[in-house]
């Protein structure tokens, strides 16, 4: 059973194939198999599975990948809203997110 599908067309992932040097690191780090190789370059095949973890962006030497890194956690969004600032996984070690 496929349990891994969240909302469609929401993520901030952007990819510029012109900058890709085919190092494959995005494929190695992506936990949801968003990418695959197509010839000598990476290709985005399952964009809606992206969870915006940011692993591909910080490991992309040429900056071909851009994504606004964040945590998919409602409690973090609420605490970010209450305290001001960006949502972080800072639940003081008391929640299952962190």
């Amino acid at each position, binding site marked *: 059973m496929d349990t891994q599908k969240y909302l469609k067309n929401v993520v901030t992932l952007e990819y510029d194939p012109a900058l890709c040097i085919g190092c494959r690191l995005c494929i190695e780090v992506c936990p949801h198999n968003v990418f695959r190789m197509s010839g000598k370059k990476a290709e985005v095949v399952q964009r809606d599975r992206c969870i915006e973890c940011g692993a591909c962006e910080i490991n992309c030497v040429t900056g071909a990948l851009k994504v606004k890194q964040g945590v998919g956690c*409602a409690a973090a969004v609420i605490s970010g809203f209450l305290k001001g600032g960006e949502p972080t996984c800072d639940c003081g070690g008391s929640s299952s997110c962190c």
Partner: protein
Amino acid sequence: MDYSNLSLIRPPEIDSRWVLKDHLGALRVRFSMGRNRYRVKPGLYRLGRPGKDSEVIVTANYKLSFDVVRRSLDGLDAWILVLETYGINVWCAAGKGTFGTDELIRQVKGSQLSLYVSHNRLIVPQLGAPGVSAHKVKEATAFSVKFGPVRSNDIREYLAAGYKKSEEVRSVQFTLKDRLLLAPVEVANSLKYLLVLVLFFIALSGLNSAGYSFELMWREGLKAALYLLVAYFSGALLAPLLLPVLPFRYFGGKGLVAGLSIFAVLAFLGPIEIPILALLGWFLISGAISSFLTMNFTGASTYTSLSGVRKEMRLFVPLQIAMAFIGLTSVVISKFV
């Protein structure tokens, strides 16, 4: 004389086996007790009898992470490099950046790792990648980061295959077992809010058109407590467990369906004799509570994005508030008509 090597001390020796204390500790943190104090000291450790060619496995200083890693490496000789993540697991610490490029560089240099090994490989858990930039680590330390598998159980296979991972080994899952382990944490976390709600509704239950009745408070209050408890378990336990089979992709939608269904079943089956207005009110309140709690399970899940959660909150938080408000108003009005 050359004293430059005097700082080279033998890193502490560790065992792959778990003793009773490790098992009890793991059980305790699964139920959300003392999680942020469950730590090991950062630095370099020896597992078995590692030598110059042995692999360096990097992990976080959350003791459960450390324990799971050493257990999975049973029979292997390896160096374990523990980063200071303040007792947070690899994945969450990577999101915050504490399991990150700078800390990895600091530990590689601080532990004088290059004196213990003659190769330049660091096996970093794949889930640490959101915090670790392989090319920056290489620049600063000459060590080459290899992103290993997601789960430590796959490390041996990964090493045996010459640092290669199958699609499955690279993938984050969210199995029934994962949800069974995570749901109790959520249940425990919001318990204090449940208690406040129960007390509020018990106090409210005594109200009637003749003033205040303590007899009514107990009789109606216990019913209210039962509804709240059911809504709570629907949202924090039932919906998370049934996640893949509930309709909607929105977690809030899944929780809503679970909460409304459970209350409907309860209302049909149970010997509930309450005014229709109160029944309707509790129906809405149950849905709102269950929806909210399941929405909060997005944090425990492994496949939600911030953009997605924001979208669902824009939709469901107003709905939850409206349902709770109309529900509460209905319940209160029903006491006076």
